[in-house]
């Protein structure tokens, strides 16, 4: 999205309820700033993230999608993030294979105690995606007005 001639990416952040969503809350508690372009969707666990949701986000105009979950080994459901890790690794690799910028997708493990890491991650991700510019390779023009 262009705002006053400046590119503002749309970022969807899927956060697991137990660690990363709480981590985002902690970032808020500590007033750690990160760009408003990041919008969080709460999911119970990183393993709830269906690749279809990621593609849907890109279709609907997202420029970057990030998944945050508990650190491997710390999943509230024991093993969810292990599955998420494999799924996302393969999906990202496939997107890359299709020539879609690999930097538009990311997975980051953020615990409930890592408010600062959450903010830093989001700052960095927004910066990365801003540099890439608008998502052109996985876009649906019908959704862009």
């Amino acid at each position, binding site marked *: 999205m262009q705002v006053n001639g400046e590119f503002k990416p749309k970022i969807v952040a899927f956060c697991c309820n137990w660690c990363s969503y709480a981590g985002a809350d902690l970032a808020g508690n500590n007033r750690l700033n990160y760009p408003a372009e990041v919008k969080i969707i709460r999911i119970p666990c990183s393993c709830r993230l269906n690749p279809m949701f990621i593609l849907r986000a890109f279709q609907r105009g997202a420029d970057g999608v990030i998944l945050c979950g508990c650190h491997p080994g710390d999943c509230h459901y024991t093993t969810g993030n292990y599955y998420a890790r494999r799924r996302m690794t*393969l999906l990202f690799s496939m*997107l890359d294979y299709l020539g879609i910028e690999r930097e538009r997708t990311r997975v980051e493990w953020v615990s409930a105690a890592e408010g600062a890491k959450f903010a830093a991650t989001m700052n960095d991700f927004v910066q990365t995606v801003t540099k890439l510019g608008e998502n052109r390779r996985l876009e649906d023009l019908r959704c862009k007005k």
Partner: protein
Amino acid sequence: MQEVKQKAIELLQSGKVQRVLGWKTGEFFYDLTPAVFETVEEIKKDFVFSPFCGANLSKYLIAESRKEGKIAAFLKPCDSYSFVQLLKEHRIVRENVHVVGVQCNGMCDIEAIKAQGVKGVTAVRQEGETLVCETLYGEKSVPYAAALSERCKTCKSKKIVLFDELLGENGEDDPDCGRFDLVSKLEAMTAEERFAFWQQELSRCIRCNACRNVCPACSCEKCVFDNDTLGTANKAAANSFEEQNFHIIRAFHVAGRCTDCGECSRVCPQHIPLHLLNRKFIKDTNELYGEYQAGADLETRPPLVDFTQDDCEPSVVYTRGGNGK
């Protein structure tokens, strides 16, 4: 080849099976159709096993094995992998199927023959390593190797992984078949080149669903792309996004389940090399999580429903494969 037909007759005659799943003659020599035979007469008249029996018969057994009586199925190495994978997913009733393994020397493809400049082919005969084609424009010869279908040029295995009886010798895996060469080649390109390549390929998709409907792994009761209530239905490839979306998600859904039988690419009317998507997943899982061949056995956990605590992180994608952004 007569041996196969003879076996079919024998099985039916002995009462061991009530039906036989095989291939039926067509108008020409190459347009064979999978068919269920119920009588010896039908077999004698129409049953055929030839280098044009490319169609993978395993998927038919989902429905056929649920019918009354036992069915004999002639499975080539490729088909046998699909068969085992379907068994693993509880889609086939094993007791109702008598599997006859048939060896395969690589299946031919009429389009490969035509790509050699041979037109109007009406009949063919094999003379050693050569196929002699009768055409509307006279006789033409094509080397057998050139007539091979694309997937058979990089055959991963001539092993029939499961059978009740075997015709001929069983074969072996070929780890050096080079089936990932094209994937590697693509990986080595820049992202721009890859994007251009796939745009070019996928833009031809007409969403006829042939790839999906032929795929033994795509045997869902209802496909997500047909599912209006789920909100994921997607009928026509309206634009490049929907082309990408369909093929990415389809490949993802069969990841770890795809046996690499190559039917998707065989049936694509637009010649989109769809197997290169599936092979990418296979190559990735092999490299990242250890060698895994879907359909090779009934026990091993497929990579996507498995994990180890020290799996690589998704960020591995940022650093591996491809040389540029």
